[in-house]
């Protein structure tokens, strides 16, 4: 019992993934600034933001469901923490996990998105309702190609549905990114996690321009800090999942730690550059993109994986 609480609160869970996620979000903002020929924020900026938000007043909307409004960010934080635990334990090679944990991870990764929707609808703000409906359509769009690529990976790894066995298969037979179906699957998953994170080509749920931060418009103070922490953790957990699925996992022993940092950094760099070089698309364009093109890519990946390429 004690070790599970340690896993959840300290090492791969709340504290560790929060700190590393904050660092990754700083890297993201710094790269964005350098792309735009700016200086960028200081290293501890994510920490300053979260501590400042924890010390501010929290305003509860008059016309809304107060309990849901306050509990939604808490559940988002716990969902992100527990999905970080389930992803990082096998990816870092600490524990083997159990058979079928990749299916559990797919469900757990959806908890933050659903709590965004619930919190936004509980706030009673019309702009938040618009943002929530866009987030819902986005989930409907990106879930299917994500699951199809997971099927391709399960086929490639000899029908195992455990993340640690997928990583062990890659350690024996080479990383999946080295094959054609792996490359196509990687492009698809990159687009899906871009939409899961709400980064720019698919950030219509939080459009600053027209709906004023959308789903999080009514959140202030410490509950907004919980949403920020959730974003930081997902920014670490999703690239870590991608490295586990395509690059053969991470390792914390000796010199391998540099190689692990490089793997995560490459995924974060691709996400950041994708975000900086694209405009926001409309919601129906995003749905068309995922349902038509990304599903096509994922099906091609499955066919290639069945052929063994």
């Amino acid at each position, binding site marked *: 019992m004690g070790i599970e609480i340690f896993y959840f609160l300290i090492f791969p869970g709340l504290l560790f993934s929060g700190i590393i996620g904050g660092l990754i979000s700083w890297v993201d*903002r710094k790269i964005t600034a350098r792309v*735009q020929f700016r200086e960028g924020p200081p290293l*501890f900026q994510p920490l*300053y933001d979260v*501590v400042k938000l924890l*010390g501010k007043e929290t305003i509860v909307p008059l016309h809304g469901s107060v309990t849901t409004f306050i509990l939604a960010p808490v559940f988002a934080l716990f969902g992100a923490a527990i999905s970080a635990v389930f992803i990082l334990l096998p990816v870092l090679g600490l524990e083997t996990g159990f058979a079928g944990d990749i299916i559990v991870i797919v469900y757990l990764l959806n908890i933050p998105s659903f709590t965004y929707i619930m919190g936004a609808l509980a706030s009673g703000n019309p702009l938040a309702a618009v943002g929530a409906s866009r987030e819902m359509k986005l989930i409907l769009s990106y879930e299917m190609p994500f699951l199809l690529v997971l099927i391709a990976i399960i086929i490639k790894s000899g029908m195992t549905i455990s993340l640690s066995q997928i990583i062990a298969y890659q350690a024996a037979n080479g990383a999946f990114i080295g094959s054609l179906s792996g490359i196509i699957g990687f492009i698809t998953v990159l687009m899906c996690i871009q939409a899961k994170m709400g980064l720019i080509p698919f950030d219509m749920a939080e459009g600053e321009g027209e709906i*004023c*931060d959308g789903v*999080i418009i009514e959140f*202030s103070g410490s509950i907004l800090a919980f949403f920020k922490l959730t974003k930081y953790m997902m920014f670490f957990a999703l690239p870590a999942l991608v490295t586990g699925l395509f690059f053969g996992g991470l390792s914390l022993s000796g010199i391998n730690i540099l190689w692990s940092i490089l793997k995560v950094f490459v995924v974060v760099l691709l996400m950041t550059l994708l975000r900086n070089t694209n405009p926001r698309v409309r919601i129906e364009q995003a749905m068309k993109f995922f349902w038509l093109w990304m599903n096509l890519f994922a099906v091609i990946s499955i066919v290639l994986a069945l052929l063994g390429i």
Partner: protein
Amino acid sequence: MGIKEFCFKKSLWVFHLSAGSCNNCDIEILDLLTPRYDVERFGMKLVGSIRHADVLLVTGIVTNKTKPRVLEVYEQAPKPIIVIAVGACPCTGGIFASGYNFAGPLDKVIPVDAYIPGCPPKPEAMLAGIMKLLSPPAPQQNKA
């Protein structure tokens, strides 16, 4: 200075409210985000919702029509909040001070922490004003 105040000063999120301006100060505020001035290196950024804001920038004269709106936005903001009047109009009224719909300078409506005069003020002046507000006051020296 506690860690709370330190982090507050290091991460100011700015909400921009135009109370009836001629759009000149607003463009100068947007200049602060450009690569030449880059306020993100001080941790500041523009936010879209007053619920996230730490700083309320008000531009333009407060007219009889916008006065209730300014009050409402100020009441919606989570405290503590810093109010900054940007430009000659919210500071004094400027050339509209004798207008029929002028509802008084901004400090007659809500408490103001800093005034940045100018028509429009340069981005350097805005940065200098915010930095002077945030840095601790220099010890007063009595002139003999």
